[in-house]
């Protein structure tokens, strides 16, 4: 079936089976590969995106569910890595292998959009949806605190 939705402000129409995971549509058809495949089961958060401003595991969303909706990926967070979360991520040297970091950043941006001054506990709890096997967690927390301060 053909589904029309917006990705990072641009309207796209995708012809694929209705149950196709949005993750694969974004990566292979829209060709935005910053959103990552990690577990396929909504357990690791590498595929985190925003749908109408709410964070979502794109591996758990079917194509048909986003008809007419607005999807944002890491590539659409800012045109020039100028989002406060991205700037803070560089300032704190957060990424190591980097594979999970698009998802971490999208989770963090969703948190700050709703709660600009989160407590440390709120940050830790919110970010526990996202696995980082390199263990950059202490720096993720510091970067979110920095972004919250500097935004």
């Amino acid at each position, binding site marked *: 079936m053909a589904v029309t939705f917006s990705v990072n402000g641009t309207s796209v129409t995708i012809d*694929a*089976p209705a149950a*196709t*995971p949005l993750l*694969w549509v974004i*990566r*292979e058809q829209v*060709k*935005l*590969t*910053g*959103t*990552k*495949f*990690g*577990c*396929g*089961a909504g*357990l*690791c958060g*590498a595929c985190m995106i925003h749908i109408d401003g709410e964070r979502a595991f794109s591996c758990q969303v079917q194509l048909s569910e986003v008809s007419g909706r607005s999807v944002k*990926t*890491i*590539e659409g*967070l*800012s045109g020039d*890595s100028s989002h406060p979360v*991205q700037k803070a*991520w*560089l300032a704190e*040297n*957060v*990424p*190591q*292998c*980097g*594979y*999970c*970091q*698009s998802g971490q*950043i999208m989770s963090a941006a969703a948190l700050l959009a709703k709660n600009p001054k989160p407590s440390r506990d709120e940050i*830790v*709890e919110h*970010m*526990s949806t*996202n*696995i*980082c*096997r*390199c*263990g*950059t*967690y*202490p*720096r*993720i*927390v510091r970067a979110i605190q920095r972004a919250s301060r500097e935004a």
Partner: protein
Amino acid sequence: MTALQQDYRNAQQVMNRRGFMVGAAGLTFGFSLGLLEAGTPVGNGVAQAATGNGTVMNPWVTIASDGTVAIISPATEMGQGSTTSLPLIIAEELDADWSKVRIVPAPPIEAIYGNPGFYGSMYTAGSATVTGYFKVLRQFGAQVRRVLLDNAARHWSVPVEELTTEPNVVVHLKSGRRMGYGEIAGFASVPEKAPEIAPEHLKQPSRFRLIGKDVMRSELPSKVNGSARYSIDVQVPDMLYGAVLRAPIEGSSPEKVDDAKSRAITGVVKVVKFPFGVGVVAQTPWAAFAAKNALTVTWSRDGKAQGFDSDEAFETYTAVARGTVANPVEIGEKVGDAPGTFDKATTVMEAEYRCDYAYHAQMEPLNALASVSPAGDTAEIWCGTQSQPMAVDATAKALGIPTDKVVLHDMLMGGGFGRRGNRDQEFVVDAVLLSKEVKRPVKVMWTREDDVHNGRFRPLSVHILRAGFDPDGSPIAWHHRYATDNAGKFQDPLKYNGPWKQRDVISIAGADIPSYAIPNRLAEHFPIDTGIRVVALRGIGFVANKFATEVFIDEIAYKRGIDPLAWRLELLKNAPRARKVVESVAAMAKWDRKRDDRGLGLAYIDYSGTSIAGVAEVSVERRTGQIRVSNFWVAIDQGIAVQPDNIIAQTESSVVYGLGLSLTERISIKHGEVQESNFYDYTVMRNRDVPEIHVEVIATDNHPTGVGQMATPLVGPALSNAVAALTGARVRHSPLLPERVLAVMKA
């Protein structure tokens, strides 16, 4: 022929023409300046090192007329940072302007780019990169600087001794003249023979501008905006998608394949039977995954691990370690005469320790893209690998073609931890074989379930520790006997039968306790051929061996009624660097301060020249046995700190990895098959599980040693020791699962 292929060919021809010195005892890094004539367009250069016109200074450095300094990095990148640190070492001695440095991945030519400190291999592993390349890269950088100085001296007709450099500029102080490296590169002639640089002419550490100062890792900006490229992200025209159902037991093969349901799925192109499994090719990833899941396969029952059970294995391994079942033995450490000294001991202590299998869980499930020519005689591959030549060799072998017919695109790795360093590079071969079948490019992706089921694990182990004491209570004899799967043999048969001399060096690593003043020591390793897929995992043999030895050291302290800190300092009386890290970490943790409901545990490790000590602070939920870690302190002395903040980052990372291995991570095997599947039953650390981590980097002027995994093996013993300090109960089985903690607390 692609541009990259052309570069490889040129590089090989240049090498043949000039000849690199290869010594009988291994590799000598032949340094051959003037590989190409000055001004040769760099597009055809050895390393494709810079855009525009430039001068190839040597196989590592090319300087373009605009001042761009292209420097080769021989390491692959999995987040550890050596892709930045190695070029930075060259740039330091070359006095390059770091903002003008462009980092170029090395082509897979071990004769030039192999690690002189690691069997001459291009193999990014073992935290061996900076330490192995440090000396030669400083030389190379200094030699290039000298060539630039000589050229400027000739140009200005002044003695070279009157010249000095500032970043990317040669300066004649007397006359105030200055000339940029790019300008010099425009006319420079490069001598046939590399200039000699005496050690005293290398920079003094006090003059370092880059080493010891933090620079941003070169690939970091790409990792906050989605532009970082991993092999899973690569798409090429006409590409198809592959998935492979591998035999659940290594060595089994598909006997009967029912693929009717798979073929009925829209978009499925082909189903292929291999000796090791069944591959499917489809037009979309989801069709490929669905087709793989729809296969019904009857497997042969001839895999060596048929019937293997990891719970039962503990009993078998214990029998082997105790010598009641015959097994080959190899020596991990032998100092003095431990067996003979036990006869003279007044008292003897003994304890037994166990460690489960563990899984790497790199975040990027294994994958590769291959494009094999329709005739099957050339191939291009895109993969993230810990060894570029291994990926090329495995591809060439799978196709029966020479290695120079394979072009590698070396991509970023979404985690490595040892999973991408196995000789057979099976995750690359999957794509190669399927591409050959369909005569189109194929990207094979493993699902997370594939990645777990087809995992290659940290071995299971059983350790028997004995210590003998004289009448004063001083330790006079130490004997460590332990049994594990043979990881070295499975991981890399070529090295196992070559430089490793048929020793399982992966499992042997860390069996020695060189800094401890115990006069008679023996470590005996019993490698067992189980047929289970086992390889190195972050911390390699150290994780299991140090769990056993550092907990045992602690048990001795308790038995003797000495504070574990005082006891270690006594044992380390002849090792000042070791004492320093132990004293530092004790001060950081305020070791002497009493805590309510929290226990402190200490561990110390010598790890390939790095001295590292850690203290864990834990509480225990007494009803469930759940351990909660509130703080973890580390002091690390790795000699020269090339990139201090990266050392902290790697140490934090190593601690978090160690927490997972020590608290929750366990692979179990029944009937030879892996039981876990995904992050719901193989649980790794999340943000909420991580304590405050405090790292002190103790920089010394010693040769730099590894930092990428040194803290991982500290965690298990520090936790067990902390639980014992708090509860009096000793957990001797890692991971320290709640039920195991509860069991010893009740005992």
